[in-house]
């Protein structure tokens, strides 16, 4: 008995020793900078090394909320998020259903859909930028040869054509993740449910709507929230595809520019706080939906 209590004590002590270093590191890289960001967001803080930081109240927040560039960035981010997440979900579910059926070459398909996911975002953005190059790009050459477009388009020069291309890159890159999550969800559906549905005379389409879709919905919701979180903070694709063009900045690009181009840590931090609050709402939703146990 005494030995068991001794062991329990030793386990408890060891748990502390093991958890503390990791928690310390996480606090150092997330907690501390986050507190700093909160503080800076209420300060006039130029990174030019000349002006000393001073208290500014809510000036930075007032600046952002009255800045039309910020609202434009919010708008671009929301459109991007809505379309990319919606298209990814539909395509992801289609791919997951195909990958879940039995056919020759299934393993090859499962490996092939991982390739866009593994390619660095910077690289996929560059590849698509080359594909949509105005003179030599494969898309313009094919479309012009087939006379679908009267003359070659400068796709990335105007928002009306650049945004769909950017959404396409994101869909290409992240549909694999969506498909994999949904495939895992599909594999959890017990086979006897389909057998029972067959006995009841259900057709393929009927089975999809009354068995597959309801049972995969929890996974779909989790995947949706997960992807939405990612899409709301999109930076790489926009930065590479359209550079820092003011009319095509997302909130993350806007934030980075405030900090690096304008050296304004005050406004940059205030933007970060706004993004964080927005994203945290989705995180709470996610942890509610995912039914994760923490004990």
């Amino acid at each position, binding site marked *: 008995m005494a030995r068991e209590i001794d062991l329990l004590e030793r386990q408890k002590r060891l748990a502390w020793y093991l958890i503390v270093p990791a928690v310390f590191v996480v606090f150092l890289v997330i907690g501390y900078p986050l507190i700093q960001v909160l503080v800076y967001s209420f300060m006039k803080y130029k990174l030019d090394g000349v002006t000393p930081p001073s208290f500014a109240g809510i000036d930075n927040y007032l600046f952002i909320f009255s800045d039309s560039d910020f609202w434009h960035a919010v708008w671009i981010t929301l459109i991007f998020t809505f379309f990319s997440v919606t298209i990814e979900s539909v395509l992801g579910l289609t791919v997951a259903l195909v990958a879940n059926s039995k056919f020759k070459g299934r393993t090859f398909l499962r490996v092939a859909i991982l390739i866009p996911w593994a390619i660095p975002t910077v690289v996929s953005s560059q590849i698509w930028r080359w594909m949509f190059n105005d003179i030599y790009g494969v898309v313009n050459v094919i479309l012009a040869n087939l006379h679908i477009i009267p003359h070659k388009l400068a796709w990335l020069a105007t928002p009306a054509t650049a945004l769909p291309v950017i959404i396409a890159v994101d869909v290409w890159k992240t549909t694999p993740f969506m498909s994999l999550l949904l495939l895992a969800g599909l594999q959890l559906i017990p086979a006897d449910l389909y057998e029972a549905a067959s006995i009841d005379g259900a057709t393929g389409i009927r089975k999809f709507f009354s068995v597959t879709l309801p049972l995969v919905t929890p996974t779909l919701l989790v995947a949706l929230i997960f992807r939405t979180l990612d899409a709301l903070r999109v930076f*790489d694709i926009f930065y590479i595809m359209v550079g820092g063009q003011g009319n095509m900045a997302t909130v993350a690009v806007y934030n980075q520019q405030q900090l690096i181009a304008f050296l304004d840590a005050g406004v940059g931090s205030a933007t*970060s706080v706004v993004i964080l609050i927005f994203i945290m709402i989705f995180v709470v939703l996610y*942890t509610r939906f995912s039914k994760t146990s923490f004990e």
Partner: protein
Amino acid sequence: MNDQQTKVLVLRVLFYLLVVVILVFNLFPFLYALLSSFRPSNDLFSTDLWPKALGLDHYQAVFKDARFVGSLLNSVIVAGSTVLISLALGSLCAYALGRLPFRFKGPVLYLVLTMTMFPQISVLSGLFVMLKALNLFNTRQGLVVTYLIFTMPFTIWVMTQYFRSLPKELEEAAYVDGASPLTVFWQILLPLTMPGLVSTGLLAFIAAWNEFLFALTFTVTDTMKTVPVVISQFSGTSSFEQPWGSIMAASMVVTIPLVILVMIFQYRIVAGLTAGAVKG
């Protein structure tokens, strides 16, 4: 052939057509980039779809480019160190969270899961000032520290799931024999979580290798830049058209190792990805 058989045949054909469409959609951009990387400039900058000549010119050019080669080395060092630190600290912490009695287990796990979804952009200015103050701005060490933001919570979370999934009997037998909790970890549990370590290590490596925002913001000199930053800033020597051949060759150099890793460890990667997101 009766109606039923015709219907089955048509469905079968449509199904395989869908498979082909999915494959083309997923593979075409990659294969097109691969092909472009082998086309000499005069062939690449023509509107012919099919190459008339192939060669290694662009690969020779990028490997002669000190900036690119240096950035490859930086990326290997940064991503490698990030993974080693996260696995070492993260798996110890995960052992405690998954296996040992600990009063604040629930809140800590909740915090860890929340942190896995933490938006990096939110701490950009805080990290910028912190790195400057610690003299880590524009250094590889500085990048490693900031990369722990996304690798540590992820490693802790996924490894905790792995530790939890191991049967209780394993360690009980060892405790009866008088083993200490740390011995149990080293000699019994750690070897069993090897598959988990491989999955998480790979995913953390890919995430660190692909990272762009921090690398772009926290490095300024060419000698400290990582591969994604250098690829985003490739510019030609004189022509106003970008050196697309070199960009594609450099892109393939950083992508092909990842594609090979994905092919070898496909099963492990999928297991890690889904453990990080759906299981709980």
